[in-house]
């Protein structure tokens, strides 16, 4: 009989390569091509500018409630940049930049946040799942995709996103457990943005890190500076390589910050200080990355300005496209589409009944 300390496999690294003051760890600096850097920066800037524009549209009543992503661009682009088109992407609901990186068009985002079911349209060539609003529920779908990829031996990897709040849900724990048990090629990206609506991380978990939860399930975990795109990229690339080689899942905690409100219906003034927000704005991932790219001569001030102009044009084009679409009267019968492969008879009757009301649809608020 004895009492000995058990040697548990694994420990948790914290990875930071480029800090907010521009200090670079050149040993850890990844070898990324200039064109890949340009792709990544463009995606981050697009994510930022589109987010800011959506907030303005929301305040003008031109779109409905939406969850801003500002400040989380590095965590979304450094990760998705490591995926192949043939890999799977399983988002939560605060990954607009990542979704666009993965091929979602801006006008569908605008339609979605204007309450149009058409906004969920995804090009059939994309291996993306739609956004998932019930927190953490999508994590298990990612594990299932990974199981299927193993079964079919496709070599695909799966990347799923969620926030710090999701780590309290049962589906998160079940997902990590199953992923490790079956050694599925899944990369779990936790965007720890410190706040789940009004609940700060310290009230969400008593763990020192979220990354350490990976150890309990028997998979590698790492915590990275989520506002440092180089660190995010390195951690994600390691995880993707491991998964693709049959090494199973990885959990990556990206330490970042929700600079804006939870959604535009939320008022953070009720529960957190501006002081705290200011401190995180100083750690903004965008200037950090653009300064690095200027230093490396990948961009010049002028080419950055040109890029911004180009992106603003693209955003304007998407807004015009969405608003043009919305000028047409909505087709109420759309609600019967895609519920089943084949519309059952009782629903065909309900659809006909709605269609018969068509003459009254033009005016007034109350259409029922």
């Amino acid at each position, binding site marked *: 009989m004895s009492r000995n300390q058990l040697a548990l496999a694994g420990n948790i690294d914290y990875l930071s390569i480029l800090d907010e003051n521009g200090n670079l760890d050149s040993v850890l600096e990844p070898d990324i091509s200039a064109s890949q850097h340009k792709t990544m920066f463009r995606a981050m800037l697009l994510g930022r500018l589109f987010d800011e524009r959506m907030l303005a549209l929301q305040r003008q009543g031109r779109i409905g409630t939406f969850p801003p992503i500002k400040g989380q661009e590095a965590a979304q682009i450094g990760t998705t940049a490591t995926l192949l088109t043939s890999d799977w992407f399983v988002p939560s609901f605060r990954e607009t930049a990542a979704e666009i990186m993965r091929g979602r068009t801006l006008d569908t985002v605008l339609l979605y946040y204007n309450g149009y*079911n058409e906004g969920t349209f995804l090009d059939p060539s994309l291996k993306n799942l739609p956004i998932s609003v019930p927190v953490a529920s999508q994590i298990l779908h990612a594990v299932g995709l990974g199981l299927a990829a193993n079964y079919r031996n496709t070599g695909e990897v799966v990347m799923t996103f969620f926030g710090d709040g999701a780590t309290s849900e049962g589906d998160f724990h079940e997902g990590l457990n199953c992923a490790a048990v079956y050694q599925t090629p899944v990369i779990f990206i936790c965007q720890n943005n410190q706040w789940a609506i009004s609940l700060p991380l310290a009230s969400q978990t008593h763990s020192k890190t979220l990354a350490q939860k990976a150890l309990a399930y028997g998979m590698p975990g790492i915590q990275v500076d989520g506002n440092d795109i180089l660190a995010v990229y390195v951690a994600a690339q390691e995880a993707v390589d491991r998964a693709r080689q049959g090494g199973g899942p990885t959990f990556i905690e990206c330490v970042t910050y929700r600079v804006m409100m939870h959604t535009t219906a939320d008022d953070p003034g009720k529960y957190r200080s501006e002081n705290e927000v200011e401190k995180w704005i100083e750690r903004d991932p965008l200037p950090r990355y653009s300064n690095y790219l200027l230093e490396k001569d990948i961009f010049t001030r002028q080419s950055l300005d040109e890029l911004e102009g180009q992106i603003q044009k693209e955003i304007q084009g998407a807004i015009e496209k969405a608003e043009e679409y919305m000028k047409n009267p909505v087709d109420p019968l759309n609600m019967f589409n895609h519920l089943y492969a084949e519309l059952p008879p009782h629903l065909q009757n309900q659809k006909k009944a709605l269609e018969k009301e068509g003459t009254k649809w033009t005016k007034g608020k*109350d259409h*029922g």
Partner: protein
Amino acid sequence: MAKMTMVQALNLALKQEMEKDDSIVLLGQDIGPDGGVFRVTDHLINKFGKERVIDTPLAEASIIGMSIGMAIHGLKPVCEIQFSGFSYQNFHQLENHAARMRWRTQGRLTVPMVMRAPYGGGVRALEHHSESREAYWAHTPGLKTVIPSGPRKARALLVSAIRDPDPVIFYEAKALYRAFREEVPEEEETWPIGKSNVARPGTDLTIITYGAMLQPALKAADKLSDEDGIESEIIDLLTLSPFDDSLMIDSVKKTGRALVIHEAPRSFGPGAEIVSRLMEDAFYYLEAPIQRVTGFDVIIPYFSREKYYLPGIQRIITAAHNVLQA
């Protein structure tokens, strides 16, 4: 008496009951400093402290599961599930445990708790935020399901729900939260669970409804009266389970005609039970087939189309004429 929104009336009920009974604790997401996303628990944490107003981690099953334990211990948890669309993540705790703890311990252990949750459409919300799935709970033996139709009833019913010895699902129509104000007395007022109400007296037709749908029903009834001299009697059910069918049966015996309205999907919805009870106990008094005006059997569409999904005045009037002409 003060004029209050439903949010303020619910806040008053919580505050007054918590003052009277220190066994009442609140659990939920963002119910502390944030006051709940709809502000129903606003300022309660300042008054009662974080031991009684518990901001939980983001986990619905934790909220309901822990409440079951607290209730067994003798406390009275009043939980807020942020949107009823997220309550499926705690479904198993209600179905497997809260609903049957009394039954499966032969009365030894009981679970007096309340799950409050906003339900229903009409506020241009994101997906999963507009469903009307009260039938799940009303279908579950061991649970009680209450759905108030305005500020005064909401306050009185929440007090009764908190004092009830069994688990109560308390659905709050988010379309009603700030839609209008009603006089709500400062002094204690309760409304019995399992008791419906005649919201409008009438002689020609009985309209049976509850929750957010009472408002379009009342407006349609006024229009029918003004334009066609038709006097509808409206029965506001207030509780779906246990279901008080006495007023509606009496009313249909008088009018001979009935119309049922709910925003929940039609098939196997609350209307099916309502119509069955009428068939069982008022069949020989009916002069026309009963009609239903309900949501369609589809997922409630995103908000650009929700007004076509939700029953409104026009559909109610058309159906009323159909029932009257049959």
